[in-house]
Structures are given as C-alpha cells and as structure tokens.
C-alpha cells in the first residue's frame, strides 16, 4: 500500500539519498535508510515560571547499524573509507546531543 505522506503521523524508516564526500576524495552517491515523520509536540501555558511547559520529541534513529564504503579517487594521503549509520528502527524521542547534531528550522 502507498503511504500518504501528507497525512502520515508517527516516525518511520524512509529511504534517503546523499552524497558521501570528504576532502581528498571524489564523492559517492549513497541511498540508505534514514528516519522521517511527525511526532507529537506541544506547548501549554502553566501558572508558574517559565509559564510555558513544552513537550518536544523528534523522529530520530532508535537502532542503527554502521555501513562503511570506499570513496573513489582518493589522494594517496587520504584514507578512502567513509562510515555512516543506517536506520534499522526509528522512533519519536529526544534529540541527544551526544550522538546527534540537533538542528531546527523555521
């Protein structure tokens, strides 16, 4: 069945393509599994400071495995391997800065 992405609620594994690149090598197009979705978030007024209570969960990796590829045409002094995470399971959760670069867009 075709998932209607406009109406989708939740957090799921979704195909993702990117260009793996680092200085001294050519780039390599990679298609892999990443996470995408819509998680419940809210803000509500409360009586005590800071007067707004919030609940913020984002769709992120819950379980991963690492994949390593070799980038082409690397210069002699550059190690060609490039490692990236593959999503096995995705879930709504807090954005952990220990493992994740948390960016937010308007």
């Amino acid at each position, binding site marked *: 069945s075709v998932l209607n992405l406009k109406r989708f609620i939740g957090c799921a594994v979704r195909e993702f393509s990117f260009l793996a690149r680092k200085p001294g090598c050519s780039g390599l197009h990679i298609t892999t599994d990443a996470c995408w979705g819509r998680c419940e*978030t809210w803000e509500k007024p409360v009586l005590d400071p800071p007067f707004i209570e919030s609940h913020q969960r984002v769709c992120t990796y819950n379980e991963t495995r690492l994949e390593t590829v070799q980038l082409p045409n690397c210069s002699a002094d550059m190690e060609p391997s490039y490692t990236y*995470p593959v999503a096995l399971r995705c879930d709504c959760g807090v954005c952990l800065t220990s493992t994740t670069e948390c960016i937010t867009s308007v």
Partner: protein
Amino acid sequence: FRALSPGCHLYPFNVTIRTDKRGTCRGTQLVYACVGYCESSAFPSRYSVLLASNFTRNITSASRCCTISKDAKIKVRLHCPRGRHHDMEILTARACRCNMCHRSRY
C-alpha cells in the same frame, strides 16, 4: 492530548486555580495550548559535522516543533467565601505554528 492530524493546532483545556490548599478562593477558566505533529527527520551527518564533533555525532536531526506563536493574557475570576471575588491573569495560546524546537536538545 490528542489531535491526530499533521500540523499544529489550538487545543482547549480547563485550568482550575485555588488560592491555597483548602481552595478558599477558586476559579476555572478555559485556555488553549498548542498541540500537533510537525515534520522531523534524521539522516547521516555531513563530514564537516563528523569532524567538528570528533566523529561522535554521526546523525543529524532536523526538526520543527509545535509552539505557541501568539499568546495573550486572560482574566480569571476567583470566587471566594462571602460572595467576594478576586481577579487574576493567566496566559493562553492564541495561535500555533510548527517552528523551532528549543528543548529537544537534552
């Protein structure tokens, strides 16, 4: 909290205020929170992020969260013994928007 459609919407709830534990003066007022499902995704970090984080942040999470974009103060009337009353102001949401997540970094 349930509003099972994508987006970020006003959500009504009742706030009850008591002036003390015995509820000498009390009042109830309908106010609004913002509740919803905004888009978020997580994918492999770029090499510059890997380098900057000493290869610890191999995931990048890009998210928006349901936030209060406009709020207002409204009056609540607290009813006290002997027909007296006392007014106070509390916050309510007036408009909601999928916008930057603030508290998802922890």
